[in-house]
């Protein structure tokens, strides 16, 4: 049985997920993902009526249960300092980040 998710696919996924992984953990995760794919493939056997729409929510939102749109206004959060204090590195009210690397997109 060939794995759906090859080591190369996995490497790309880890990059997209921004995860640095030791080799043994990567191999365990790839194995579990491929096992999960065996379950997911079961979906291919569902007889799907072409009329059925994709449901993003189980429950439908309509005039019976939808909240009215809120008024659009800005609110100063009273906890500004508590929020900013959560940042690992701050300087003069700014959050400090290291260099942002640039790469050419294909």
């Amino acid at each position, binding site marked *: *049985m060939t794995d759906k*998710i090859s080591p190369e*696919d*996995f490497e*790309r*996924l*880890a990059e*997209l*997920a*921004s*995860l*640095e*992984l030791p080799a043994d*953990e990567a191999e*365990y*995760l790839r194995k*579990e*993902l491929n*096992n*999960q794919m*065996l*379950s*997911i*493939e*079961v*979906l*291919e056997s*569902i007889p*799907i009526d072409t009329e*059925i*729409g*994709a*449901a*993003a*929510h*189980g*429950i439908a*939102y309509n005039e*019976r*249960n*939808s*909240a*009215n*749109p*809120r008024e659009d206004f800005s609110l100063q*959060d009273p*906890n500004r300092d*508590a*929020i900013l204090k*959560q*940042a*690992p*590195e701050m300087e003069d009210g700014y*959050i400090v*980040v*290291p*260099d*942002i*690397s640039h790469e050419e997109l294909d």
Partner: protein
Amino acid sequence: MKTCDLPAFIVTDLIKTKQVSAVEVLEDTLERIRQVDGRTGQVDALKASSEEDLSTVHAFTLVTEDYARKQAENIDRLIKEGENPGPLAGVPYTAKDIFTVKGIQATAGSKILSNYISPYSATVVERMEEAGAVMVGKVNLDEFTYGSSSESSAYKPVPRNPWDTSRVTGGSSGGSAAAVAAGEGAISLGTDTGGSIRHPASFCGTVGLKPTYGRVSRYGLIAFGSSLDCPGPLTRTVTDAALTLQAIAGPDPRDNTAAAVAVPDYLEEMEKDIRGLRIGLSEEFFRVTYFDSESMELVENPIDPQIRDAVLSAAGFLAQLGADIVMDVPLPHTKYGVPTYFVISRVEASSNLLRYDGVKYGYRTEKSFADLRELYRKTRGEAFGVEPKLRMLMGIYLSAAQFDKGYYELALKARALMRQDFDTIFDPKGKYKLDALLTPTAPSTAFPIGSVYGDSVLMQYSDQLTATTNHAGIPGLSIPVGFDRDNLPIGAQVLGSDYSEGLLLRIARAYEKVTENEDWRVKRPPILSKNGN
């Protein structure tokens, strides 16, 4: 009987009639926590190994003793001054460590949030406080709620089942269920994305209510699957579940998916009789499907006869009370619940997990890094456990254009079919005209710690009887219906149409009353008698 073993509705009554003070009730609960809980969960701490560790509950990630004492003193003051202290006045409760509470840690059971102190409170927490409830602590869970045993938490030791401490609590609201079962707070706030309230409730012998999606605000809940997540209560009695839902349900301007639907009087609804209600049983819920790791094939078997018998016996009691039991109700897409969940929940989780970056808040790697990308990769690689990693990687695999095989769209269609299954059986003009469906909550009772964890597929199949409810958005209420031969609790759930919580509470309350003199009702978790309670 100590006040920590009494239901919330009795405790609050005793407090309001000045037979006991809120502070005294709190002290009883804190004393119970000291007796049975053992080491509080800490990030990167040692797993349970000592005799004491192995025989205690470990429900908590934080006991908020001082916070609770201030709240309890305030309740006593309000009562003294003749003010209305609220419907849950003085009732000790816990919150799954996935809800934010201003000024208190909100860890999600993850190293990545291990140093996070929330600057705001979740709507449900605010509403519990307005109702006069007293928060005694935050309780452990699967990391970011991802699991069905609570073993994946980065906070060790992980919770152990009060009925048998060698077994799991279920999950992901395992700390909630264990705390409630052991008298460490009468109520716990949990969340249910694929069964995470009902599953541990069934494993620990408590009541667990997953409301209709949108019945309760998600504001202040650290998100997992945003189209599936539902906050709700775990309690020891149906009345307490009704009281809690009453306090937390309703629209919220801070969550646009919180439904603009009036909240009925659940206590009144709950006491109505159930004569003439049509309650269905479905064979699809008496089968278990799982992936056999040897053959790598999906295997289908009948459910454990002890669980089947307990659910059928519950149906028998409901029939005695005048309910019509409708057999062989078809829900043909039930078996797709887990595969669909694998897709939808992972795609939503991966999107929700991208915000943790080691820059704005939370853990940051202590290793050196050359640039921002390396900071992200190291921080996330170190601080996320196995489950968040799996869910992110799978979510990206299923949704990134370069890998797209159409599974996400297929899953959304399967979701529509599951919704259609329930719409058909609950249609008042349809063939079945059901008011509710009665099913087992979980395919097994509590399994031994370590016996499933590590096999992410088998663990996910533990949610196969609960996940379709979340796909459909409908409410589900799990109640204890007996014990298996190992003395482990068995749970059954009643499912109903949108916003039918009142009706589900009514069925559960009728069952609770009619079985109150059954032998199994007097059983208590052995851990309590061991500690002289």
